[in-house]
């Protein structure tokens, strides 16, 4: 989520020891109380749960052979990086997972802790910690079955280091789920101009187009750091209905699922990612609203 500094530039500056950006932190500081207002500034993230939770749940269910439908993620240890107020941690916790949510902003963690405290089941299943990803790497080597980084990598200072850290805290063959925004003309128009300035469904200044990540680049970084990308799906937000849906084109928002290679360091030869980063026609995105 919040990633430190990293003022655009090209990749000349590689020596950043943190992925947290203090400018980004300030943006979210002001909204730290607003997380749980379903109709407020974060309404789009609330409704994103309707597609991202089933995506995570079904992908994990498909990969495992023994599960109980009444408690589908029971026994799964999940790390929610950039958890904010806990919008995604809570549904995952309700589905039975043991969730650790981290966020560099203390106020966010405070809001998250306070919100989960009323539900004894969630209070037990979810632990929140104010921290960046790097800070927990040492004590959490190969600890988690799943990492979710939803709407985070577009705020991160050093994406490659972020991915390396994910790999370190993830068990072999563990899953990494990322949702983020593509860097295209369309995503600038719809994601920033329309979403922030015109309709105001995203608080103004939340996103910087320069930091958006094209799926091809994300995939390249993942594959070169020991991950095998399994799925890429485009996502579309309909501001009229306030709801998200899947779409073919990844021109605006997209979700990615990758698996860390096993102990031998080989990814299994049989996988073929379902959608490779060939250029998708932009026209389809615009007409679906």
């Amino acid at each position, binding site marked *: 989520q919040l990633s430190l500094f990293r003022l655009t530039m090209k990749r000349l500056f590689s020596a950043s020891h943190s992925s947290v950006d203090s400018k980004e932190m300030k943006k979210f500081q002001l909204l730290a109380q607003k997380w749980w207002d379903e109709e407020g500034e974060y309404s789009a993230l609330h409704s994103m749960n309707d597609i991202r*939770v089933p995506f995570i749940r079904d992908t994990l269910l498909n990969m495992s052979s023994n599960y109980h*439908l009444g408690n589908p993620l029971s026994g799964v240890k999940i790390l929610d990086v950039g958890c904010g107020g806990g919008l995604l941690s809570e549904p995952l916790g*309700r589905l039975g997972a043991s969730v650790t949510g981290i966020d560099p902003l203390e106020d966010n963690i405070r809001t998250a802790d306070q919100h989960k405290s009323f539900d004894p089941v969630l209070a037990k299943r979810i632990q929140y910690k104010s921290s960046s990803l790097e800070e927990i790497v040492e004590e959490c080597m190969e600890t988690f079955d799943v990492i979710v980084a939803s709407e985070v990598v577009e705020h991160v200072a050093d994406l490659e280091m972020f991915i390396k850290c994910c790999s370190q805290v993830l068990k072999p063959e563990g899953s990494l789920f990322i949702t983020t925004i593509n860097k295209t003309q369309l995503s600038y128009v719809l994601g920033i101009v329309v979403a922030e300035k015109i309709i105001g469904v995203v608080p103004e200044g939340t996103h910087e187009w320069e930091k958006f990540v094209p799926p091809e680049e994300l995939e390249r970084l993942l594959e070169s750091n020991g991950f095998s990308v399994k799925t890429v799906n485009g996502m579309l937000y309909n501001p009229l209905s306030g709801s998200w849906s899947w779409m073919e084109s990844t021109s605006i928002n997209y979700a990615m699922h990758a698996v860390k290679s096993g102990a031998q360091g080989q990814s299994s030869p049989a996988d073929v990612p379902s959608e490779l980063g060939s250029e998708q026609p932009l026209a389809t995105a615009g007409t679906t609203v």
Partner: protein
Amino acid sequence: TSAAMAAVWGRGLLAPLSGRPRAGPRARLRPGLRSVAAAAAAPLYDVVVSGGGMVGSAMAAVLGHDIHFHDKKIALLEAGPGKEYDRMPDSYSNRVSSISPGSATLLSSFGAWDHVCSLRLKPFRRMQVWDACSEAMIVFEKDDLDDMGYIVENDVIMSALTKQLNAVADRVEVFYRSRAVGYTWPLPSHSCDTSPWVQIELSDGRRLQTKLLIGADGHNSIVRKEAEIKNIEHQYDQSAVVATLHLSEATDNNVAWQRFLPTGPIALLPLSDTASSLVWSTSHEHASELLAMDEESFVDSINSAFWSNINHSDFIDTAGAMFRSAISLLKPSGTAVRQLPPSVAKVDPESRAMFPLGMGHATQYVQHRMALIGDAAHRVHPLAGQGVNLGFGDIACLAHHLSAAAFNGSDLGSLKHLLKFETERQRHNVSLIAAIDMLKRLYSTRLAPLVLLRTWGLQATNALPPVKVRI
């Protein structure tokens, strides 16, 4: 025209939906807001169903048997004692319901229908409905000789539901002899020190908390009143008289009979080859008379209501006959064979009872952390035999949305999926409720033009399969 009427009715019944207050019932910051510590002491449930009648019990049972509610805690609050029978008493209860095939499907989805079948029920194949003021008649019958519906005593249904509730006692806790006396609603986006859950206070002082409160507490719903939801209601000047009757001779008794008298419809619902249940909607005075008169006179009144032609007028008879011949020219199969209803010989002593009738519709079915189902949401005249079936339909819809929400890890009390339930059910219910109310008014008169209208309407409807199927 009925669609237009339904639309007008619909707007009236629903009231401006945009006016739904976001903060639940007008920010009721009553003294009910306790500190977190005290509230934390009250046990927290995922769902509490208030009202253990047929609809409330079925709702709790459906959720209890749902796989996605496997690790959830459900509570059912019922003011009366529990009722379970292994065998039914020999005599029939006078409160029966007409169960549609759809409702039977719902009941079998969690194993209750098997219990109903092993106790007792009466399937019927045909429904004959006719007008006392004319010869007009409409017959409902399924082509494939399937059962159209089932007449089941309410006690039988309750017994079956209780059995199935006991089967999931680890998930569903039933509080008998427990009446809720107060509800405290949370604000949707709560701040630090107030509990986000609904607080319930019972008459014995116990407290519960819940993430979702389902109000199934009947047409005088306290849940609805405490939520300050406006209810459009109307008392009919009618009471229903119920009784258990014995027929003059044993017969195949698989037809449900209803005749529209000017004072109200009289219906004979089959219970067995020799017994039927009476539901006679009539004026309050006439109902009291019927209850007071001796058994022989009572039986005579019933037979006369079904057989007498006293309300016919020549004009209507001729007009009706003309229309009928016109139809048989256009659609030879459009006029049905008139069967004769059975005649009644005896009434079960002590089985006569009466209760007042009215209609009602809640302008909202849901609010943050609250949903209404069954008579709490809508109340109809028994003339169409729809009352409890509408409630079962509510259950099927709400359970479907809650199940999906649970599988998505959502907060069960979230308005998002509750609104989907409300939209679906209001869309279905409003036109039906409006139609039933309109039928009741239409058939309450002797005025020739209206009689003619409904005569022709009934005959036409009888001749038109698409309309009949929809009903």
